[in-house]
């Protein structure tokens, strides 16, 4: 069979070159550069800015130093905080809420379903800076909407960003990201032939039984995909910085924010790069675990 091609290989290469150069300069080289930098004591200022020393695994040892590991503002604290953040806001918050919303919206009227989807998606498509301000206004002690509601209900107002910073960013991230899971599960549910659910209806199944026995097993692949994506997104998310600046006193300093502080506020590029590499390895591990599960489930199904 004759291979059809629009351009000669050489002409194709010429067209490819600009994009390849950009990707190379801004993605591939920095990727390896970060790994290299993580083995040095490079900083922004001082002698090591010009002439950094190769320090081997020194930066990594500092990160995992047992003496300071769990101290606030240190790597370990941020790591544990981030894991909690992922569990509560992504796995429980976004995925579970998204699943429940998607499931409930299967049986409501189309008008209500459209409204629900629009509302949830609005939270997802708004620019981050806008929603950062919106939440700031929502949570403000004196004039915030939440405290107004609390007061009108006769409940004591709270300075939420100071008192419950962690739960604020958990709820914030859940609110922000549930739309994605909802849409993904929604389309997954719609890919199931309606007669499956009708047969279950006639057979006497309740909504919960239909979800457990029919819908969930059939959208297992979508669930795995959703969990991979939202775990990684949440693990790397930086938006809570807009609300809390990582504080108060590092209580909401997620790994991404920690990296930012070390590298661009303390200007310790070497250590910042080391954190970046560790985050990348953790993400890689997540991806591999989830892919393994997906593969196993698929093998079981066949």
């Amino acid at each position: 069979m004759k291979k059809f091609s629009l351009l000669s290989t050489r002409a194709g290469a010429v067209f490819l070159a600009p994009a390849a150069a950009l990707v190379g300069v801004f993605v591939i080289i920095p990727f390896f550069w970060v790994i290299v930098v993580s083995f040095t004591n490079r900083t922004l200022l001082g002698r090591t800015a010009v002439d950094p020393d190769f320090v081997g695994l020194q930066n990594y040892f500092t990160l995992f130093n047992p003496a300071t590991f769990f101290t606030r503002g240190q790597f370990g604290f941020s790591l544990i905080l981030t894991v909690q953040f992922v569990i509560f806001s992504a796995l429980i918050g976004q995925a579970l809420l998204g699943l429940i919303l998607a499931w409930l919206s299967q049986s409501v009227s189309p008008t209500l379903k459209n409204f629900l989807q629009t509302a949830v998606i609005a939270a997802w498509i708004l620019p981050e800076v806008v929603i950062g301000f919106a939440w700031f206004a929502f949570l403000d002690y004196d004039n915030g909407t939440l405290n107004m509601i609390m007061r009108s209900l006769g409940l004591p107002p709270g300075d939420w960003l100071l008192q419950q910073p962690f739960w604020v960013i958990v709820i914030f991230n859940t609110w922000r990201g549930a739309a994605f899971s909802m849409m993904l599960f929604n389309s997954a549910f719609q890919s199931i032939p309606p007669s499956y659910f009708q047969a279950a209806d006639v057979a006497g199944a309740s909504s919960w039984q239909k979800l457990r026995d029919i819908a969930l097993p059939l959208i297992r692949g979508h669930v795995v995909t959703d969990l991979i994506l939202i775990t990684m997104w949440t693990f790397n998310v930086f938006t809570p910085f807009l609300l809390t600046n990582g504080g108060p006193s590092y209580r909401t300093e997620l790994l991404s924010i920690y990296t930012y502080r070390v590298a661009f506020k303390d200007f310790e590029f070497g250590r910042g790069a080391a954190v970046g590499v560790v985050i990348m390895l953790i993400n890689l591990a997540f991806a591999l675990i989830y892919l393994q599960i997906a593969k196993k489930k698929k093998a079981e199904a066949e």
Partner: protein
Amino acid sequence: MASVEFQNVSKTFGSFTAVPDISFSIADGEFVCLLGPSGCGKTTSLRMIAGLETPSGGKVLIGGKDVTYLHPKDRQISMVFQDYALYPHMNLADNIAYPLKVRGEAEDKRHARAKEVADVLKIGDLMKRLPSQISGGQQQRTSLARALVYPSQVYLFDEPLSNLDAKLRLEARGFLNHLQRDMGMTAVYVTHDQAEAMALATRIAVMDKGRIVQFAPPIEIYRRPATTFVANFVGNPPMNLVPVEAMVDGGQLRLRADGLTLTGLPLSDDIAKAAAKGKMTLGVRPEHLRMAEAGDANTITGKLFANENMGPESLVTMERADGGRVTARIFTDDEIRTDDHVTLAFDTRHVTLFDDTGARIPEIGE
């Protein structure tokens, strides 16, 4: 088992009226087929019995109880779907036993019951297979088994055989007929295949444009179709319909059309009244036509269109001057020799007359 009743049920989807207003009642133990072309409202009606659609007006009763707004799961019904709706991730045992699972039966008990039903349907040795690993006919029986595994008031079938090939369909049809005789179940069966309806039903409701045109036992539908629509829908090949000019001549009815003369038909008041309008439709079943012999008076003539040998019978089709076709079904062992023109003879005892609106004119003494 229970009766089913529709009282002035209607159903609209937006601006589209699927079912304008139908009423009927199905007695306990009846096997009723809803027969009609696609879009006639038969599936919508079935789904309203199941509770998968809510009527826009009227009442649905099962066993005398108003179930119009009851959820399907609370109606004690079974349903077999056109696409079988088997769960691809469950093996046959789990698929068949699913209705028992949602009723909270223990696993060993429900699997034992599933096996029992599956054995009757000759799929008992496939219980560990997934639906994708069995044939279409076996899938059909699996979905039937799932409907039969628990006690139901009414069994609903939505074109359950339409995805099977011709041979399997005949086999499954025979089996359903046997099952009905065995169980005496109340069943409502939707189909567009008149042969299925004829073979299975104790009564057929022929539907057209959301209305029931005729609701009668199969033989009645076949012999006395209420309208030209029913006549044309039932029978394979269907009844021949020829528009004719009618006149009364010496106390007898005379019908005429291109190439057709039919005289000596007895007259009744009804027939005379219809004949007075001048136009009628003559209906004759293909098996009530034969090759004309010399001296036959009541004949129809046309150009030969097709001559199909079916084994025990031959189908001889002619095309008349106005383009209308007439088919005769001739039972003979001999090959039928025809030339360009065919003349067929009527058996005047077996003609059906329709008035100018397409409604059947009652026979004499009916």
